[in-house]
């Protein structure tokens, strides 16, 4: 990374509202998108989902993101700009087949980008891994600006799948809590702009200070008990940047509220000597939004850094992870220098990125 990579203009559209500031305000109020939805399950059972009140299509969400992105519209169509999409399933409106192709066309149509969008799909880590790839494109001089958009919508396909794995929570999820019982699925869209130039941002940007993507090499649908990939990913960033995360740091973790994921993270954070610094999970606010998760949660982490406040881990009451963590229970006002965002997912993937002030 030879030149600084600025990151800003974060935008989200979630069931909690439109805009990063608006969503962040909702988190600080303890409001959640997760609500009981009747007949959502395979056997018509009620499930807790982070669902829009009115069903929203993939294409509508992508359209909303590009319509509301706070950057010069000329930047979108510039040959110096790339657009990258993070999604796990794409646009399922007209069925499973060709969903990725439709997703790509949707992004191309709404962004009017000069280059075809790059569509990455690395399961639950995609949002974070694409933000890293965007930063690498800029640092290597392959382009000047990248618009990263992350989007996934709820579908019977994904809901029934997680039900078949017995991974869905009974009520609203409880990340890191002793009584956690699984995840809530959710839907959302988020967009973040990365650039070599700070002057393109209306509001002063932050800095993408490093990223890493690794694999557990352990299991396709369960995390490593030793937190192998996540530990390696975090260590690679901190070693490469020679950064020691101190008290002015916070980890915005994955925290899906499954027993295995949260235990794995507690082990990985402890091995990485991060068990003392504040950590939270935003999953009880939004649910697990899959390909959007890394983007919308990074957008919220950016708001934390801008406003020096860490939202409480909604749903967390009783410590219950394999290794103790400093899980934030109440909103915490504290001066922040670094925020570490992590994600882990199916296929054994792990991704981390580090944000700081510019």
């Amino acid at each position, binding site marked *: 990374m030879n030149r600084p990579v600025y990151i800003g203009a974060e935008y989200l559209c979630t069931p909690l509202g439109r805009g990063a500031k608006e969503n962040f305000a909702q988190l600080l109020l303890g409001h959640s998108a997760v609500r009981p939805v009747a007949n959502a399950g*395979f056997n018509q059972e009620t499930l807790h989902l982070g669902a829009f009140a009115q069903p929203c299509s993939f294409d509508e969400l992508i359209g909303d993101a590009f319509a509301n992105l706070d950057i010069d519209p000329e930047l979108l169509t510039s040959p110096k700009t790339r657009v990258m999409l993070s999604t*796990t*399933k*794409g646009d399922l409106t007209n069925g*499973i*087949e*060709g*969903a*990725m*192709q439709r997703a*790509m066309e949707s992004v191309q149509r709404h962004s009017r980008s000069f280059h*075809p969008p*790059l*569509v*990455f*799909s*690395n*399961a639950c880590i995609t949002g974070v*891994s694409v933000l890293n*790839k965007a930063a*690498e*494109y800029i640092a*290597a001089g*392959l382009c000047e600006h990248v618009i990263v958009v992350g989007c996934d919508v709820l579908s*019977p*396909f994904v809901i*029934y*799948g997680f*039900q*078949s*794995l017995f991974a869905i929570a009974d009520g609203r999820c409880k990340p890191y809590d002793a009584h956690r019982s699984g995840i809530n699925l959710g839907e959302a869209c988020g967009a973040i702009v990365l650039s070599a130039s700070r002057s393109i941002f209306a509001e002063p940007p932050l800095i993408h200070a490093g990223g*890493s*993507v*690794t*694999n*557990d*090499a*352990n*299991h*396709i*649908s369960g995390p490593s008990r030793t937190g*192998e*990939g996540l530990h*390696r990913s975090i260590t*690679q960033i901190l070693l490469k940047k020679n950064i020691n995360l101190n008290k002015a740091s916070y980890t915005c973790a994955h925290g899906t509220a499954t027993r295995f994921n949260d235990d794995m993270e507690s082990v990985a954070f402890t091995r990485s000597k991060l068990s003392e610094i504040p950590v939270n999970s935003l999953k009880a606010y939004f649910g697990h939004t899959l390909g959007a998760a890394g983007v919308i949660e990074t957008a919220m982490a950016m708001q934390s850094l801008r406003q020096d406040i860490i939202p409480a881990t909604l749903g967390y009451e009783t410590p219950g992870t394999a290794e103790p963590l400093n899980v934030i229970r109440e909103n915490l006002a504290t001066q922040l220098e670094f925020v570490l965002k992590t994600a882990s997912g*199916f*296929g*054994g*993937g792990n991704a981390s990125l580090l944000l700081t002030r510019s």
Partner: protein
Amino acid sequence: MNQPSKPSQLSKLSPLSKPSPPSKPLNVRITNTGVYLNGRLLLPITADDSLTAIYRHLETDYPKFHKMDELSKSAFLGVELLKAHDPLLSTYNEDKVSLLFCNCSSCDSSDLKFEQSYAVNGSASPSHFVYTLPNIMMGEVAIRNKWYGEQQFLFQPAPDFTVIAENLVLLFNNGAEACIFAWVDIREKRDVFFVLLTPQHDIPSLASALEKLYITTHD
């Protein structure tokens, strides 16, 4: 490749089974009719049960193979074939082997199987669901080889070698000692193409080199 006789047979077919000269990276193609190594026919196959035939040819003992979906089987075999013809691939730092896999149909075949399990057969199948992400095949390769390095799945309507080369350059920038690029598509017909690259290869000319390899080995 446990039998000593086979590599020597293969070396007649492949001048690249010694350390690869920088200009032409080791590559493997698997189609409905055969396995090709650096463009030359290594193993003719028939459409029926052809992936299992390649598995048997490799004389590999990895029972998990039989549980995989077809994408993962193809990915597994592609990497095993590269390893069989470049032993160096098994010697790189475990954190520094990176994968870039692409295709034009994601994991549609496995998606349809899972959809059928709940829509037609009346019960959502977890063993099908876990293969309904296109990056899973890279996870299988990581597990098999204990590779902890970066993995990226990129969806493309057709191979865009400029973008592919950009992403390979970035993987090397991140410290990779070896990168495996693969186009793994099985939706309409089997189109599986694996290339092993190291930083010694001519990165600036990578796009045209890969495109040439892909086209010249295409049947």
